[in-house]
């Protein structure tokens, strides 16, 4: 199952890609919540981020201390090449399936 990616993992990965330079815990959480209209727990978000980092899909670095966080630093996330390849693979597979299933889906709609 190398390269396997869950739905939530994909969502987080894409959001990091969207937020670009400003992807950190709170911003990722808020962005996903806004877009998908679902509430996600901070714990599971960070667990998923940790897993993505383990898989080598993202890297992270600490930013500067900020006032509104009690002087604590933010950890920013960024996609690695490996992460981009993984996202692309998922997309290719999806596209392929979409193309093949177009007829049936059109029927039911």
């Amino acid at each position, binding site marked *: 199952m190398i390269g396997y990616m869950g739905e939530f993992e994909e969502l987080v990965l894409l959001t990091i890609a969207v937020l670009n330079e400003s992807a*950190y*815990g*709170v911003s990722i*959480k808020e962005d996903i919540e806004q877009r998908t209209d679902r509430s996600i*727990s*901070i*714990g*599971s978000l*960070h*667990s998923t*981020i*940790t*897993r993505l980092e*383990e898989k080598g899909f993202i890297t992270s670095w*600490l930013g500067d201390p*900020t006032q*509104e*966080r*009690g002087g*604590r*630093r*933010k*950890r920013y996330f960024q996609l690695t090449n490996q992460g981009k390849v993984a996202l692309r693979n998922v997309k290719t597979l999806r596209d392929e399936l979409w193309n093949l299933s177009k007829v049936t889906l059109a029927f039911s709609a």
Partner: protein
Amino acid sequence: MKGIEPPRLAQKIFEWFCSDAAVEDLRGDIEELFYVNLGKMSVRKAKSLYWLHTLSLVTSYAVRKRKRRKNKFSSTEYTMDMLKSYFLIATRSLAKHKFFTIINVLGLATGMSISLLLITLITFVTTYDDFHVNKDRIYRVISKTNVLNNREFARTPLPLAENLQSEYPGIEEVIRISSDLSGEAEFDGKQIPMEGFFVDSHFLNVFSFPLLKGNITTALEKPQSMIITEEGAQRMFGTEDPMGKVINLKKFGDFEVTGVLKQLPKNSHIQFELLVPFQALEISKSSQKFIASDEKWSDLNIYTYLLLPKTFSEDEPERIGTFLDKIAKKVYSKNSEFVASFKLQPLSDIVPGNDLALEIGQSWDTLSFIVFGILTLLILLPACFNYANISISRALKRSKEIGLRKVVGGQRNQIFLQFILETVIVTLLALGLAYVFFVIIRNEFIPVVVDSLILDLTPRAITILYFVGFAIFVGFVAGAVPALFFAKLNPIQALKSKSSSKASGGSMIRKALIVGQFALSLGFIMAVTITIKQHAATLNYNFGFDQENILDVELQGVDPNIFRNEFSKLSSVQSISMSSNIMGASNPTRVWIQKPEGKDSTDVCKCLLITTTYLTSI
């Protein structure tokens, strides 16, 4: 939004839970969320959300992972190599500081030797009656009475056994045991006092005392048959074969030996040399009281044991209990002077168990074990305190080592473990010495506590295992304080300072330990001094009669006239006088005396019956 902060307790919990793992960004995230939420909702709601976030993070994989890799240069895992190294360092350090080691080992060994005694005693007592094949099915009926401050008696009235046998269908065997047999046994002109019981003939089917000779089903069938133990046979017949020999038991007539029992295990709560059928008691003329009748309900004269069927249901003992209650109600309703109720006691509860009156054999009540246990602790604890004090005061010698360990990444719990391990090595050494002490004091101790015949303090495999477990436990108790102290040392101070690396907390603990140790020791010295004085006072007290050259001999059922005749032949015996009881030592006979002033008023007197020369000879 100034002034409002996230809940402090939640922050503390987070901090404590993550210890020194890198979670700055995570805490920042939830704090940021908190302030964002403050703008959107009530303070209360924001705070509870903060709690929720904290819990969600604390239990998340993210924090788990970060805790695991919190320090690249140190591992919190305990590898075999590390333990080996600890062991090596510990042995080196112990070998280097021989004086310290010897003092500690000696101190701990003294404290532990008493504990070993207690452990052996407890393991021995818990094996009581384990050898009976039917041990889970054997019950005894005991009586709770309204006499002697509502004491419980191990005996029951005679008719109860018959009632159980005939009116309660679910019992496999009812065994009656009477201890009236003790007295002199005569064979071939030789008279030897023997202990024995009258028992129902199925006694050996219930209790697993193996027969060396004879048939288990027929040995007690005839009323004039008798089973003797190996040791009893040896006393009576020497090396001769006891089978078929006829022994005369004064009051009860002649009995033929039909079986020889293997020597009884010491951990049996029933001890005897002879077994004689219960029938013999019933037909003997001198024992009219052993014929069951309704008047006999106020005499607690026999022991009643029950064997339940192999597949008895769980509530069977309870049902028997209600049946016993019913009998008691029926029997004692009219008789108000003596009232008793009965209950079942499983074999395993007899020894160790509660202290019952008229117990069939030696009893080991739980209370005396607790007292002994507390005494043991009082002796053991100062030894542990002592170890802790000496170890901490030696901290200077080890502080460099600990400082260095910490600098290269030694974690607190690793240093804690190291010193615990070192203490365990010391306590294991002490165990060796304590065992030697134990063997020495064991022989002194046995006669103090109890008739040595029934106490077996030879440790078995399991006892040795308990010993080792105990030594490790003592290692933890004695080592905890110094190990904590060392684990807490500040590495910079430990490496730098030559004179004092005292952590302030450590000295407080030490002071407390020293005070505790001295208080206990002083208490002991006082207690011992008082005991010695009291003992001396008791011995030297002037009772008003000459105690020199007087022997008090308990006759144990021997005919007094024969005794008097035989002993008066000895030239060293000047005079012989007799009393009904040993003066001061046993329960005297009670008599009721009518007071002179009125016919109805009586008084109880304790009464000692004596022969005419008694007063003059003392």
